[in-house]
């Protein structure tokens, strides 16, 4: 993975010290809250319902075991012993004390981490495929391009005061595990007619109160022009994006209002002026970054399919985990192991300091010391020998990390909701936990099969409800929590926004509604159809009848 150079290290250290002085001035009364708030937000520090919340970047979801141990250490010493992984591959701490933040940031800097640009109207942490570098279907490792974007976008002087926040996601596979079509810019690598790898450039996707699937403004971009093209997009947005109304300030509104063709023309015109500037990436620089992500020198191993099949037949729980949580690796004899952070006992994405340490230890023992965070709030060990999967699973299970539900009904995305968030209108976590409790019988979970349930506690949609196969949006209705449902959403290659079922349900009926929807699907599905396929075939009507009756 990428190692900080001298410039990176100095930058994060200096920022921590700068913030130390700002905090001191605030505590001394030299700065008012109005003066201080923008400064703390530039360092990822929010004030939430109960306390300050610190959002720490995990660049494109990649963590070393050393970094994970530091995150555990911080959870123990500065917080209440846990953290929360988000849908943007970051980690949030919920109980951070202002006066301790400078020391905390200094410790993060020691392990090449920080909270810069995790808030505010700037380019946020670039996100990616959690299987980057190991996916069997990958064309090129997207981390190379993510790191190039990270360096370009960090403290970029021209883009430090955009109309609104800006999120970029990159996938190096034609398939999409990074939800690139619902980002401000999505980059999808594919090959052109000549077989050369390049990026499809998708702009103006997003969720929130005005959801849009992104529009392709360029079918194929030579990678060496990536930064000049991104810069051209950002310039058009920075100049023409609305600043009069924060709810209409995201790039998706601009693209929608002026139209894709007009937006493309503006970008191409800007790009023509800068494409051959110093932003053109020299091959030597691409190679320098790529060297940090060079493929591992894997010891040769044979495919262990027979052994795994035998272990699975002897141990049904392992078999279920193998089927749900293990993905194909590009290298024979290896596998990608997903660690579910969706258990019965904790909110989605929450992880205790002890579990962080376990994940770090297991990464060292089984996966070259590397861990990934995915946008569905789970962890990944990317490089596990197939023949070691069983002992890895035993250790995960012994630490509450062995839940066999990746991509299934209880693998729910949920924002923190009204349990923590000052923007929320309703709670998300209890809904997720009640669904999890209702569907804890693993045979039933696997009988239902692949389905994504995404829960947001307000229309800002941090829980990605618009792109859940089943989306759940919490709203406040005359002082009570109600939950509205959408069906048919997807964040994959076939991205789609869900369609509203109709009136919402009070909290006590929400999980019954989920069960009702799933029972309807199971009744209607053809052989091997997953939820989304059935929904796309039969449409909304049978689900509405099940939820509301035919009257």
């Amino acid at each position, binding site marked *: 993975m990428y190692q900080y150079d001298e410039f990176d290290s100095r930058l994060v250290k200096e920022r921590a010290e700068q913030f130390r002085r700002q905090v001191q001035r*605030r*505590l001394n*009364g030299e700065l*008012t*809250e109005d003066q201080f708030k923008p400064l703390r937000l530039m360092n990822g520090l929010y*004030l939430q*319902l*109960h*306390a*300050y919340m610190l959002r720490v970047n995990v660049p494109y979801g990649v963590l070393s075991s050393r970094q994970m141990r530091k995150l555990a250490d911080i959870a123990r010493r500065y917080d209440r012993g846990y953290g929360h992984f988000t849908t943007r591959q970051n980690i949030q701490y*919920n*109980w*951070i*004390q*202002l*006066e301790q933040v400078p020391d905390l940031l200094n410790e993060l800097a020691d392990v090449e981490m920080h909270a810069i640009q995790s808030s505010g109207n700037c380019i946020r942490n670039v996100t990616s495929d959690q299987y980057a570098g190991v996916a069997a279907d990958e064309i090129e490792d997207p981390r190379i391009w993510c790191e190039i974007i990270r360096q370009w976008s960090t403290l970029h002087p021209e883009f430090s005061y955009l109309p609104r926040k800006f999120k970029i996601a990159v996938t190096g596979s034609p398939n999409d595990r990074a939800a690139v079509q619902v980002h401000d810019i999505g980059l999808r690598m594919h090959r052109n007619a000549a077989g050369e790898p390049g990026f499809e450039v998708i702009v103006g996707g997003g969720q929130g109160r005005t959801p849009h699937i992104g529009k392709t403004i360029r079918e194929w971009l030579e990678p060496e022009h990536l930064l000049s093209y991104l810069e051209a997009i950002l310039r058009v947005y920075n100049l023409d994006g609305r600043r009069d109304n924060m709810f209409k300030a995201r790039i998706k509104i601009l693209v929608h209002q002026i139209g894709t063709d007009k937006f493309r023309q503006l970008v191409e015109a800007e790009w023509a002026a800068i494409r051959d500037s110093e932003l053109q990436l020299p091959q030597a620089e691409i190679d320098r970054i790529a060297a940090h992500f060079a493929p591992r020198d894997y010891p040769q191993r044979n495919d262990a399919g027979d052994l795994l099949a035998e272990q699975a037949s002897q141990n049904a729980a392992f078999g279920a985990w193998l089927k749900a949580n293990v993905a194909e690796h590009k290298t024979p004899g290896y596998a990608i192991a997903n660690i579910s952070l969706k258990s019965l006992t904790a909110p989605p994405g929450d992880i205790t300091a002890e579990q962080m340490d376990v994940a770090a230890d297991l990464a060292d023992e089984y996966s070259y010391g590397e861990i990934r965070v995915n946008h569905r709030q789970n962890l990944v060990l990317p490089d596990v020998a197939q023949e070691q999967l069983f002992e890895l699973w035993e250790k995960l299970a012994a630490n509450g990390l062995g839940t066999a539900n990746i991509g299934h009904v209880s693998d729910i995305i949920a924002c*923190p909701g*009204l*349990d*923590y968030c000052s923007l929320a209108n309703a*709670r998300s*976590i*209890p809904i997720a936990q009640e669904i999890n409790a209702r569907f804890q019988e693993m045979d039933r979970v696997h009988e239902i099969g692949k389905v994504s349930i995404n829960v947001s506690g307000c229309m800002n949609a941090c829980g990605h409800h618009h792109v859940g196969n089943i989306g759940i949006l919490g709203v406040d209705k005359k*002082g*009570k*929590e109600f939950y509205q449902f959408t069906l048919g959403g997807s964040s994959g290659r076939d991205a789609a926004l869900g369609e509203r079922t109709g009136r919402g349900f*009070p*909290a*006590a*009926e929400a999980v019954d509604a989920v069960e009702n929807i799933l029972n309807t699907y199971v009744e209607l599905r053809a052989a091997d159809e997953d939820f989304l396929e059935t929904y796309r075939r039969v449409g909304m009507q049978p689900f509405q009848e099940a939820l509301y009756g035919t009257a």
Partner: protein
Amino acid sequence: MAQILIANSLAHGFVVFLTAENNWSGDIRQAAVAADDAAAAALLEAAQAAEAGDQVIDPYLVEVTVNGAGPEPIEYREYIRAFGPGVPPPSRQNSS
């Protein structure tokens, strides 16, 4: 309607309540309860002074009922603020 004064402490960020002794406590049972609007206005004035003095952030009044266990916010958002995440708000929440 009875009211209490809620805020976040500046240095820690944790939720605090204004007490009858004009101090700040993290325990809602210590909160001064204003029985009428005049008493509530006095709480707000004291809290705004504390805000100006950089002790607390974002102080405001919250309507409560008072029972044997002490004051309980009526709005469920404020209830969750007072009692923390994972604490189910009152049962009326769960009925349609």
